[in-house]
């Protein structure tokens, strides 16, 4: 039995991201990191596979740059890593992505639980998480902060979810796709041995044909990237003793009509 998780490489969060003259997005040679949200999903996959006596697998969809994230996953201790790469996925939308992701889960054959991070910090649409679940026809539980219980034999799952305004406990049936929040665990750091093993690992690459997927056509298309309009605000520093600055600030805020 496998616990499957999806991950990708994203630009370092401190990188200055810009759109160049050619319209392409650049981040000035800054390193990529494993998508910060995925540290939690990777950790959870290791833990859940351990408890179930199964294997954990990480899958990335996209170009070779995502091998770095997969190597990070292997170094943390996931058992397997796969990458899906196909020219037909280059300019696709969340639904094409989800179709490929669902096909990869099906190809593995014995997955009962798929774990995603909450979102990726770069493109951050998170739409394909639920779309992967719908393409698989599986239960979807998002924003999971704790897996309360899971019983693969009985096909049941109970989780805690963080939703607007509070915390829900929800029970549902397996197989399921979940997305996890940072409260769920304390991600481990890759061990020295893990890093060495990961460095040597070769990662199988699947094409869409390998997955039996054909005819993907994006219904949503990105047509342009643009830099933000320059922020024109000029800061006004308020000085004086606390009562003075408080009075000055309230004057300004009343004039701005934000109170």
């Amino acid at each position: 039995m496998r616990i499957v998780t999806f991950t990708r490489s994203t630009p370092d969060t401190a990188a200055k991201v810009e759109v160049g003259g050619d319209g392409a997005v650049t981040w000035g040679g800054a390193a990529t990191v494993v998508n910060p949200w995925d540290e939690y999903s990777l950790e959870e996959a290791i833990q859940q596979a351990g408890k179930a006596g199964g294997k954990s697998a990480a899958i990335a969809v996209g170009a070779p740059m995502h091998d770095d994230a997969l190597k990070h996953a292997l170094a943390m201790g996931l058992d397997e890593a796969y990458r899906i790469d196909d020219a037909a996925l280059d300019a696709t939308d969340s639904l094409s992505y989800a179709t490929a992701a669902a096909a990869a889960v099906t190809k593995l054959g014995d997955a009962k639980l798929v774990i995603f991070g909450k979102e990726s910090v770069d493109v951050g649409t998170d739409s394909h998480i639920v779309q992967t679940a719908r393409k698989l026809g599986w239960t979807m539980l998002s924003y999971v902060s704790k897996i309360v219980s899971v019983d693969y034999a009985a096909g049941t799952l109970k989780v805690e979810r963080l939703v607007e305004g509070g915390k829900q406990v929800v029970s549902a049936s397996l197989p399921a796709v979940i997305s996890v929040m940072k409260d769920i665990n304390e991600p481990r750091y890759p061990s020295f041995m893990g890093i060495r093993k990961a460095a040597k690992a070769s990662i199988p690459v699947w094409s869409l044909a390998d997955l039996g997927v054909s005819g993907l056509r994006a219904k949503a298309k990105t047509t342009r990237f643009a830099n933000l309009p320059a922020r024109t605000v000029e800061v006004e520093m308020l000085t004086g003793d606390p009562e003075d600055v408080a009075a000055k600030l309230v004057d300004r805020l009343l004039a701005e009509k934000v109170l």
Partner: protein
Amino acid sequence: MSTVLVWIETHDGNARPTSWEALGAANALASTLGASVTALVLGKNAPAIAQDALTRGAAKALASDDASFETYRLEPYAALLSALVKEHAPLAVVAVASSAGRELLAASAADTDSAMLSDAIELGAVAGNVTVVRPVYAGKILSDAVAEGTAFVTVRARAFQPAAPVGGTGEVLTVAPVLAEASIAAKLESFEVEVGTVNLGDAAIIVSGGRGIANNPKDAPAGTDKPDVWKAKDGFETVLKPLADVLGGAVGASRAAVDAGYIDYAHQVGQTGKTVAPDLYIATAISGAIQHQAGMRNSKVIVAINKDGDAPIFKLARYGIVGDIYKIVPALTAELKKRLGK
């Protein structure tokens, strides 16, 4: 006449305030496309909320207060929405980009093989196809996207004007659930309400605290295990919360404050927390790291209070005060109480 379908999210028998922004966005889109707006309202009190949607510009409303819709759950909601989309082939389906809205629309877009455009801050149409502008890379850049066929669009909270009551009229039709309770796998076992916190995404005013909140001049009671945590929590409770309260706002925090255990993660603003765009954002004892900026840079007016005049947050702020938050904030709260007559 072709239609734009808008989901009015409800909570406990009320429309979520930001849902009226989704209706506002849908009204504007419909007039660009020469279409009319149909509102979908599910949950407790749905027929009354549907009436409200009509007064705010929807031409028609579909409503159900069936028990299976009482608390939002993906399965019954998506089954119904997907069936309605197949039946009516709307030009667009619009909802606010709340956690439920994002999930519901993406699911239904998958069910109906349609385009999903999430987190729009602008909405338009070119040759009958819906277009959006959305922030990407944690709001560091923008992207334009276009949909083919029915466009599922979530709109970012506080990016569109809410639809105001204009005295519109129309008919409310009752819709029946597609899934019976027995065939819904997800069961809500319990719900623990987080008391006293305003939803950050909906808040018009946010007062945030950072790592520096631990520099509380008060002493922790003798024998306190982690004095800095005690001091920081006390600072949030007795200094920042009163300011947020007098402003009718919510309390936010930096990741450094959350990671140090000073406040719950639900309050975190930034790249790995919430993205917010209130009218007023007051950052106190927050340096303004790029990851924090990613979550709040689109706020209308930013005020920074920090004892370090070189803190990067001042580059983003409209008003800056260099000083100790434990002196400035109480003075500000007192002044506001006086001036706002509270």
